[in-house]
């Protein structure tokens, strides 16, 4: 796509672009160097501050935190996805008395901060922090999944549904057999990207004292002393980014696989549906 937007650059444009790229890269490298120098001056890279990472109990706690993060995210995703499918079907139902209440519920779920829902579940129903975190994530993300799948169904050519109905399928069967499978496959990248958001949102569990990764980090910094705050947070940020990029890569891989599979079909005939994940 990008190549259509501009001419193949000539030698002069290439030279300007190259110079610009070098200058820009140097600027960014300079900025990074300045940041590192400033930190070094404040003693953040001193060995004693990083020695804590030789301790087994530090890694145990980080590991436990990571386990708590992943288990909450996995359970929430496993529940939220089918629930999202169901909500999507209700949302596009032909019957107004189903469609409209579902829409109200979806608007409500999408409009509430996840932290508030977690706190509400914890206090209102007296659940464990784990259940509160999972429920909060499920409520919000099932609504987002529903919207993503709905966008996928709407982006399908009309003929898909018409053909389904024409061969005598009921409306429900046409949705289940013809439209949903295509919509889900088409929206797979968005769905996986939303899973990344879900995974990150487990960090909001601090509000209900759920012992996930970020909470473990905070506990550690409090316990060991503030001089370890920066090293611990840098390590935590690196862990989060690494895991999330891994999940995103899986999304790209699925996308490629999906498009190969669909090459002979219809999915790529239409422009890619625009549905971005919601932070």
């Amino acid at each position: 796509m990008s190549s259509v937007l501009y001419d193949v650059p000539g030698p002069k444009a290439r030279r300007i672009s190259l110079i610009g790229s070098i200058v820009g890269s140097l600027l960014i490298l300079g900025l990074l160097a300045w940041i590192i120098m400033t930190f070094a001056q404040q003693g953040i890279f001193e060995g004693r501050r990083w020695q804590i990472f030789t301790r087994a109990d530090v890694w145990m706690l980080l590991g436990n935190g990571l386990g708590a993060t992943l288990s909450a995210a996995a359970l929430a995703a496993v529940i939220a996805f089918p629930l999202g499918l169901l909500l999507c079907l209700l949302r596009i139902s032909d019957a107004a008395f189903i469609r409209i209440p579902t829409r109200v519920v979806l608007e409500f779920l999408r409009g509430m901060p996840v932290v508030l829902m977690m706190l509400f579940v914890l206090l209102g129903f007296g659940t464990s922090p784990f259940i509160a975190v999972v429920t909060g994530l499920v409520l919000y993300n099932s609504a987002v999944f529903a919207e993503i799948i709905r966008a996928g169904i709407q982006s399908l050519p009309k003929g898909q549904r018409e053909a389904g109905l024409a061969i005598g399928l009921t409306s429900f069967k046409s949705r289940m057999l013809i439209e949903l499978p295509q919509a889900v496959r088409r929206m797979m990248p968005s769905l996986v990207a939303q899973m990344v958001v879900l995974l990150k949102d487990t960090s909001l569990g601090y509000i209900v004292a759920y012992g996930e990764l970020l909470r473990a980090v905070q506990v550690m910094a409090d316990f060991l002393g503030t001089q370890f705050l920066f090293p611990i947070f840098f390590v935590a940020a690196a862990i989060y980014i690494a895991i999330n990029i891994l999940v995103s890569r899986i999304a790209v891989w699925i996308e490629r696989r999906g498009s190969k599979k669909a090459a002979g079909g219809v999915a790529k005939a239409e422009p890619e549906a625009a549905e971005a994940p919601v932070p």
Partner: protein
Amino acid sequence: MDVILENLPLYWNGFLRTLFLSAVSGVIALVLGTLLAAARVSPVAALRGFSTVYVEVLRNTPLTIAFFFAAIVLPRLGVKFEQFEIAAIIALSTYTAAFIAEAVRSGVNSVPVGQAEAARSIGMNFGQVLNLIILPQALRTVVPPLINILIALVKNSSVAGAFFVLELFGYGRQLANANGDAVIPVLLGVAFFYLLLTVPLGILASTVERKVAIAR
């Protein structure tokens, strides 16, 4: 219920702070996100690379960590703010910009190739193609997802409560602590004020979506 009515001024203060944070961060994020999306499809390799790295890193960072960097790491680098709202706005807008860039980019990709080819064939350069032909069409298709991102931004501003800014959720926690006998009503009050912002945005999104659907 009394507890909500008695503390209406506090709720209102919190509501205004949340509105302020969301509005300012939203505008900055829209501008920054569109620039990033433009950089992503530009002819300059360094811009493409920078934009890609920015979006990948920020999208994969939990918001709380973004807040930590803006509110605690930046001051260590000598960037000190008189008002912590600035840190919150930096965190929210840089984070949200990554999502907006992604949404705008998929919008750009959704514009049929023929549009760009037609524009190029009448002699437009990259800037003109993007500004006059692609972005206006792309923005229209991405308006619903953009509004969804803005809804998320309103809700995400609640994280600022843990990073030195008193907003709606922070006032809610304050009230919950002071009224241990009425925690649930207090939180319902907080929910109401959030919905006051997010539900109209949601309705706007679906209205725009319907309008755009006809144009397609």
